[in-house]
């Protein structure tokens, strides 16, 4: 009695849910759609799509659901499926901004995957109805597509026709600068790059962009024999950063290159332009007077010397170049800039008449380059065995983020040091994403083997058959208004009947009225839709085997493409190392020869 009372009180104290709210399947209120939305929001596009496809097979999807499906398809790297969905939604939606953003994202996908013509055509097509808010994004993307196609002049037109430079991002300005230089309009290009190289920075990305602009401009000046201008620009690059090694190399050459004419800045005044200031240590700091004069030869491992034949200014320039290069050769030896630094030092010493010192440095350079050649061989072996790609994608193997996956850092493997530039390129990144995806899909399909076994076990479970017929009838009639009536127009009650004869057991003759044979038209062939669950499971098993094979083949082909790219890149770098080695050895031979002849009398 007491227990019952407690239970009653407990039951009353618990709140009771209201009557169930009704939702239209596939509509905004369908909890299954909201669950797909949640999966999409946590980057599980594959799971979200699976849910949406299941819903689609059961009922008509609302526009909200179809929009989510298009977004998921694109995020999972399936632009082909996303594009027609967006096109369909465009017929009915009023939200041009949302649609415009989706189209830009689709074009970005095409661009990154390498479908440049498709990207260009899609962007030009959307120009007519382009919302104002998206103009700058559209210009930026179209210009990148055109530059990737080598159409610099067209890219410049896209970025300048609308006269909206003030609204463009620094990235766009950088690209415009590059496009202008490549289009033969160097002064305007230089001016833009110079502005980006002096921009106010707020984030690490800004810093990287500013360094990149200064590096590009510096090397442009250097190639045009404008050492004086190049030197100032290289000096703006941070001393520690992704572009610092290339800048150090350039800074050294800029000291020894002809100064060239002074460059004029544009007359256009932009309030955002600032005189260059950075709270980060930049390469310019390396050339402060005390640092250059004190002990540069000691740091370079050279005996202090003064070349009598050199003018005072040349001697000072050499010292400053050595400051940059000695700093450089103490950095990552696998960086091609560092390798070049090892040759730049003796080359300059030799040019300036310091032959003995040049000889010493060439010997060290050969040692370093030989070491690098061995490392490159080891890296090549690792790539050929497929270890490199596996190592890169080892983490988050089951992540479902497809196209939105980003490689944020690199494993500590020798080959990745040589391939940094290639690894950051779209052609490699996108291939890597496909490789990851095929592995994830294969893993998913393998997992279904056990799940299918569990399904078969559930169908064979004897308890499963014991569902009361009443339950099934109630299930069929619940929440439904009967549409059938008996002769008195009263609703016919549907109930289970367990006293009927089993099929075939009824043997009384049929009445006269039943004698007429009804006309029955039989469909030809076996009905495809009338599969039992057991048959469906059997069909799944067949599909599973086929998919396993196809995925393994696709994964293998993708792996080969990545290997080919990596080997091509590494072969190029190895050739460069060998070229440096030949140069170093030839220079050494020449110097030894002159030493034997007694011609090396540098003082």
């Amino acid at each position, binding site marked *: 009695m007491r227990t019952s009372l407690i239970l009653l009180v407990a039951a009353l104290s618990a709140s009771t*849910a209201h009557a*169930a709210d009704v939702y239209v399947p596939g509509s905004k209120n369908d909890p299954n759609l909201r669950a797909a939305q949640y999966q999409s929001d946590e980057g599980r596009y594959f799971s979200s799509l699976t849910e949406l496809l299941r819903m689609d097979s059961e009922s008509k999807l609302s526009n909200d659901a179809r929009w989510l499906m298009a977004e998921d398809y694109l995020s999972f790297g399936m632009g082909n499926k996303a594009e027609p969905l967006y096109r369909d939604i465009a017929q009915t939606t009023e939200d041009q901004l949302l649609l415009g953003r989706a189209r830009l994202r689709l074009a970005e996908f095409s661009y990154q995957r390498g479908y440049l013509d498709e990207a260009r055509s899609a962007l030009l097509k959307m120009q007519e109805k382009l919302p104002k808010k998206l103009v700058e994004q559209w210009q930026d993307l179209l210009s990148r597509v055109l530059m*990737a196609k080598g159409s610099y002049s067209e890219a410049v037109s896209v970025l300048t026709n609308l006269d909206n430079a003030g609204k463009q991002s620094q990235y766009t300005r950088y690209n415009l600068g590059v496009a202008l230089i490549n289009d033969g309009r160097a002064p305007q290009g230089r001016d833009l790059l110079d502005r980006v190289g002096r921009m106010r920075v707020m984030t690490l990305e800004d810093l990287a962009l500013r360094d990149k602009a200064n590096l590009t401009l510096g090397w442009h000046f250097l190639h045009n024999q404008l050492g004086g201008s190049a030197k100032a620009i290289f000096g703006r690059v941070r001393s520690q950063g992704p572009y610092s090694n290339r800048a150090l190399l350039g800074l050294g050459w800029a000291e020894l290159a002809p100064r060239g004419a002074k460059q004029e800045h544009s007359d256009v005044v932009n309030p955002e332009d600032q005189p260059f200031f950075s709270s980060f240590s930049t390469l310019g700091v390396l050339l402060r007077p005390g640092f250059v004069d004190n002990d540069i030869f000691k740091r370079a491992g050279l005996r202090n010397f003064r070349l009598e034949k050199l003018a005072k200014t040349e001697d000072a320039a050499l010292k400053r170049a050595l400051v940059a290069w000695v700093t450089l050769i103490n950095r990552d030896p696998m960086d091609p800039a560092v390798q070049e630094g090892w040759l730049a030092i003796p080359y300059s010493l030799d040019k300036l008449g310091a032959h003995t010192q040049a000889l010493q440095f060439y010997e060290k350079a050969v040692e370093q380059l030989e070491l690098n050649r061995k490392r490159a061989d080891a890296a090549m072996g690792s790539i050929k065995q497929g270890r490199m790609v596996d190592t890169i994608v080892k983490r988050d193997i089951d992540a479902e983020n497809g196209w939105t996956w980003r490689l944020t850092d690199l494993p500590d493997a020798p080959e990745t040091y040589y391939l940094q*530039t290639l690894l950051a390129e779209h*052609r490699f990144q996108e291939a890597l994403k496909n490789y990851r995806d095929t592995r994830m899909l294969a893993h998913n399909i393998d997992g279904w083997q056990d799940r299918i076994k569990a399904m078969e076990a559930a169908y064979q479970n004897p308890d499963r058959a014991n569902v009361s017929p009443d339950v099934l009838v109630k299930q069929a009639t619940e929440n439904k208004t009967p549409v059938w009536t008996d002769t008195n127009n009263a609703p016919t009650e549907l109930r289970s009947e367990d006293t009927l004869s089993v099929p075939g057991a009824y043997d009384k003759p049929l009445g006269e009225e039943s004698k007429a044979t009804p006309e029955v038209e039989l469909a030809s062939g076996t009905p495809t839709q009338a599969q039992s669950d057991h048959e469906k499971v059997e069909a799944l098993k067949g599909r599973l085997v086929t998919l396993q094979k196809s995925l393994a083949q696709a994964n293998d082909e993708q792996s080969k493409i990545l290997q080919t790219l990596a080997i091509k890149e590494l072969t190029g770098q190895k050739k460069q190392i060998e070229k440096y080695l030949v140069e170093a050895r030839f220079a050494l031979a020449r110097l030894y020869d002159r030493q034997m002849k007694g011609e090396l009398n540098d003082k």
Partner: protein
Amino acid sequence: MPLKSCRKAVRALIVAASCATGTLWAAAPVQPPPESGALKLDQTIQDLKEEVLQFNSDASALEQNSLYPSYSRTSVFLGVRLSGLLIKEFSVTFDGGAPEKFTFDEIESLAFLQNKGLRRVMRVNLEPGQHKIRAEFIAQFADAKPDALPITGNLEAIFDKNYNNTDLGLMLVRTGFRAEPSLTLEQTRSAR
């Protein structure tokens, strides 16, 4: 900083910077486009993805029917309708049984807040009729001080499991202006 870790940090930065901007490497020299073989394979993989998705959709529908027949299927969804509230832990139990416990990492907690999504936390088989559900949560506001006590709460409710698939939505909400976050139960059913 040791040389190696410094080098690694710089390498991470190179990749992060180039990926984040998307344009850094798009400049001169322009990246060569992929070869036609790579594009053809991309098309094949896109088709394969569709086949695998269709397989998963068909298989999961069958799995759902076999393991959770619709007359007993009960799905529990969890949602958070309070801006800035990050759910950390959640548990649910039916009719005094053993609780099913869930913990959420930051990405999962944030996903609740983005587009009013619901997470399907579980599916169970329950006989048609009256049942008792008990759920508990531990959460914290994103801007809470590090030493702030976590927000906790629970809900007990009785609901009628009908003869068709039943959906139960547990929503983390604030029921009044100054009320503490609490759970509410919503029962929904398909019109089909």
